[in-house]
């Protein structure tokens, strides 16, 4: 494979580190929410792991911010554009109908344009709303006495808990969607492989037919072709 990788090494390392942390946070959260489900043995173990995995996840979020914002990747890959509104509909039709008919995915990721419009919407909500909410409410929970003014400002301990748990459930829903959608590539494992080796495998798409046209416009007319730096 030649050219810039679809997923640079730093992003791949960040992705799998973050995925491991999110998984650990969700499993420990199950025990915190339902102590009788003793996944990690003693309740104290789950608390310790959740707290420290949370700090690592906060660091991971900080790394992501420092990586994607200064490099311009945030605006290039994550920020939805007006044209994405019709793209979302097209993408949803593909998942609900087109893929059963062997249509080609209307979006083909490139190093300069990695996410389809639905991905953009979900990722930007997760990274600018849910993750910061989860990180900051988690940090407040880590030292309730030190952050008591901030907690009172948010409406008290139970409001803080509500926000943290809501963000946790959002992560659970996101993870379910993310893992399932990762199986919808040319082969069930191709997107997983791409996130490990960095490259998509175009040859795996060869068996698919041309895209199913929607009444508004053909899929083929979409997409930018110019190459931009990979990030």
């Amino acid at each position, binding site marked *: 494979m030649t050219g810039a990788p679809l997923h640079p090494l730093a992003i791949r390392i960040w992705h799998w580190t973050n995925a491991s942390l999110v998984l650990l946070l969700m499993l420990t959260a199950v025990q915190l929410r339902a102590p009788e489900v003793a996944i990690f043995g003693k309740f104290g173990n789950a608390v310790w792991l959740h707290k420290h995995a949370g700090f690592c996840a906060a660091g991971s979020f900080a790394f992501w911010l420092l990586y994607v914002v200064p490099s311009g990747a945030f605006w290039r890959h994550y920020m939805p554009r007006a044209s994405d509104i019709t793209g979302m509909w097209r993408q949803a039709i593909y998942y609900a109908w087109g893929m*059963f008919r062997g249509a080609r995915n209307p979006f083909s990721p490139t190093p300069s344009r990695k996410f389809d419009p639905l991905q953009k919407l979900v990722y930007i909500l997760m990274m600018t709303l849910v993750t910061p909410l989860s990180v900051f409410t988690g940090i407040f929970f880590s030292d309730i006495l030190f952050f008591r003014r901030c907690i009172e400002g948010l409406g008290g301990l139970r409001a803080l808990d509500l926000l943290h748990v809501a963000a946790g459930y959002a992560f659970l829903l996101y993870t379910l969607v993310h893992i399932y959608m990762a199986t919808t590539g040319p082969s069930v494992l191709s997107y997983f492989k791409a996130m490990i080796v960095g490259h998509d495998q175009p040859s795996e798409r060869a068996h698919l037919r041309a895209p199913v046209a929607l009444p508004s416009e053909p899929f083929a007319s979409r997409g930018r072709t110019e190459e931009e730096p990979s990030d």
Partner: protein
Amino acid sequence: MMKAAKCTDCHPPHGIKSYTELSAQERIAKCTRCHGDHADRHRWLPNTALHFLHLECTSCHSPDSRKGMIFEFVRRTATGKERLRHEDLMVLFVEAAHPKASIDRDGDGIVSSQELSDFFVRLRRTAGKGVSIEGAILVTGVHHDFTATRHREKECATCHSRKAPFYDSMYLLLPSAEGGELVQVEDTVLSALPLSLSINLILLGEEKIRYSDLRRLLFSGPEGRAELLRELGLRWIDFVGLGLASLLIGLFSLHAILRWVIRP
């Protein structure tokens, strides 16, 4: 060498407050006059200072004592928080001879979450938004043997679990002319909205939906269902979160099966 404790060490004959009226801090202060190294000896306890704000020593060091979750009304001041006194409540509720009658409207001796919520809304309307409800885990029936220790008291899940004994023993401490009076409250106060948002105490492992909630939602009559919906309060988050997760898993399973069956 430390002397043996006498009754009057903790119960001074000229003390003007009964034990019921003492806050967790005031109760701890009695022990720490002799056991001043309590903070150092509890370094193993995560969030030590936070625990000592909401617990008294005998919550653990008298395993056979009866424990309860005690709530009281407090008001934010420039220097911190202060309890509402009997006079404060009587000025607010002149229509009743005793605040208890203003809260326990049906007179059954137990304050429901709805009754406490109604009272608290009126209290806030009159006394301002600085009023909130503080909570603590305190001994409500003492067993005076403080030498017994059990390993179980060091297990977090002894208290951080729905099975913790104080969930069956929850009281509101009402200031009265004679001192303080404990009035039993329903455990639903911890999740009832908007009341529970004003309670400044939360324990990990405290709130979640139970299988019985699901059964009540599905199989109880309209009245039982309406009551459950009222009581669920903050626990709605579990219903919504787990419901949506189940829906997604179902949809994705169907989608995956269709992908496998209708392979183009």
